[in-house]
């Protein structure tokens, strides 16, 4: 047994897929150590939506809406993740609803960030429409 196994959670090697976009998901993950890339594919193009760090969580959306995973999560470097399954998670929230505060806080931050990105994108599109021959 390796001493490094004395860390909590599960180990994922660099580049391993934690979950794929559109797959069914019944777990959320909290990063104990390392980084995780959240990616989305549109045709041949793969876009990195975010790179998450220690203490961040992901995969929680499927626990609430029961829809397939909205993006792919991939280990960037060696990663240790704590996995919480849907039933346990919902049980915890039902016992202590205030537990959802931090999740809502993070989700609100992500929505704000997305709003900002959309706004920037619209602004860029409008600029291109106004000055179609000017490339910045």
């Amino acid at each position, binding site marked *: *047994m390796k001493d490094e196994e004395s*860390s909590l959670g599960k180990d994922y090697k660099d580049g391993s897929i934690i979950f794929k976009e559109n797959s069914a998901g019944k777990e959320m993950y909290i990063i104990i150590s390392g980084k995780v890339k959240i990616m989305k594919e549109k045709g041949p193009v793969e876009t990195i939506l975010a790179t998450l760090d220690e203490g961040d969580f992901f995969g929680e959306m499927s626990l609430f809406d029961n829809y397939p995973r909205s993006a792919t999560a991939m280990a960037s470097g060696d990663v240790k993740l*704590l*996995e919480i399954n849907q039933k346990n998670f919902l049980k915890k929230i039902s016992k202590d609803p205030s537990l959802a505060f931090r999740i809502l806080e993070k989700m609100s931050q992500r929505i704000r960030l997305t709003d900002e990105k959309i706004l920037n994108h619209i602004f860029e599109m409008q600029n291109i429409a106004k000055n179609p021959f000017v490339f910045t």
Partner: protein
Amino acid sequence: MSKLKENSNLELKNGARIAVLGGGPAGSFFSIFALKLAKQIGKDIDLTIFEQKSFLNEGPSSCNMCAGVVSESLVQLLAIEGIILKPPILQRAIDTYNFQTISGDVLLNSPSLQRGIATVYRGGGPVNKSASETNGDDTHKKISFDDFLIDCAKKEGAKVVNIRIDKIELNNDKPEIFSKGEKLFDADLVVGGCGINATTAKMFEGLGIGYTHPSVIKAFQSEIHLGKTNVLTRFGNAIHIFLINQPDVKFAAITPKGSYVTVSMLGKDITKQSVVDFLSNPLVKNKFPDSWSTPDAFCRCVPKINVGAARHPFADRIVMIGDASSARLYKDGIGSAYMTAKAAANTAILYGISDTDFHKHYYPTCKAINRDNFFGSLMFAVTDTVNKTPIIRESLLRLLRNEQKHPESGYKCSTVLWDMFTGNERYTDIFVRAIDPRLLLTFLINIFSIIFIRFKTIWRQ
């Protein structure tokens, strides 16, 4: 009853001063959650933790003395809250429990298939740790879980003062707190996170608010040095539970931590000799290296553990939390501290600090723990019977081994035992699962099988 003016409209205003007595997990959790929530709703509170001990030194005097096991459920809750347990605070991550009885043993793996349970030191580690550590790098690192939580509270804005509050007076509108005869300040709220070992609990009883501290029994904890490699190869990521019928011992466990193992024993009048007898038992000795012998001296303590509920753990501007209030029977004391501290913090910040507020919004959490402990005591009584009755004990082992061999049929009994000994679930939930008719029928079939096998053996002889 309280000499404070009875008032159901008491609430924490901007600039309110909170005195948290005790810097163990309950006090730190309360501080973290109260400060976070106050910030979230734009309330400015001034919170001071009074803790006489420094958790950085070695040995029992700097330790809040417990087995130091953080349940899987609490590890997950803390991670969601943003409190991540990592080395060097984390001593070992556990994914397996080994149940050793005199009829044999069985290994139970975590149902979540991950290393989900954390073992920690509450203080700076065992006496003479630095002299016996094999890995010199660890010796100067802060390893105390309690100190780590205090640091988390400090990050949220808590002040920490290393003195003991030895007097509280309730003569005016607000409780006055004193140390060595000197009045420190009038507190808007006093939080008693002082555990049951401290004389501070007695001080609260003397206030005339109707508070009575919970009933307690003594446990015995010892830290035995084995060396990192031996701990790793002999105990790995498993907590070993021993149900071996040692006289007066209700329960014994060995928990791996760094280069030590913690031996926890529960029962009547456990002494150092009981530990030596336990370690000399062939079933226990078998777990240790051949060349190993019980050391003459080892770090040990006799903490009290809460086995009952406190009466009236709140009043106007006063609330008791953690062990000083309600704790889960035999298990997950840190988890109980988390639950009661969070409920008290939510009440104080969102609802108010009157007796009525605490009764309405805080006390249900204590009552739920107390009610759950009734089922806990039933479950432990059953375990005791199983331990003392060879046929039932062998049937249980057979059932558990079958479940491990045939996972397709489910882990009904294994998860009941796992949740009970890890403190992962409420005893009520475990009890309901344990009386599942299908599980009871399977158990009964196993009992008859064992009786049949015994008769067959006798008949052949």
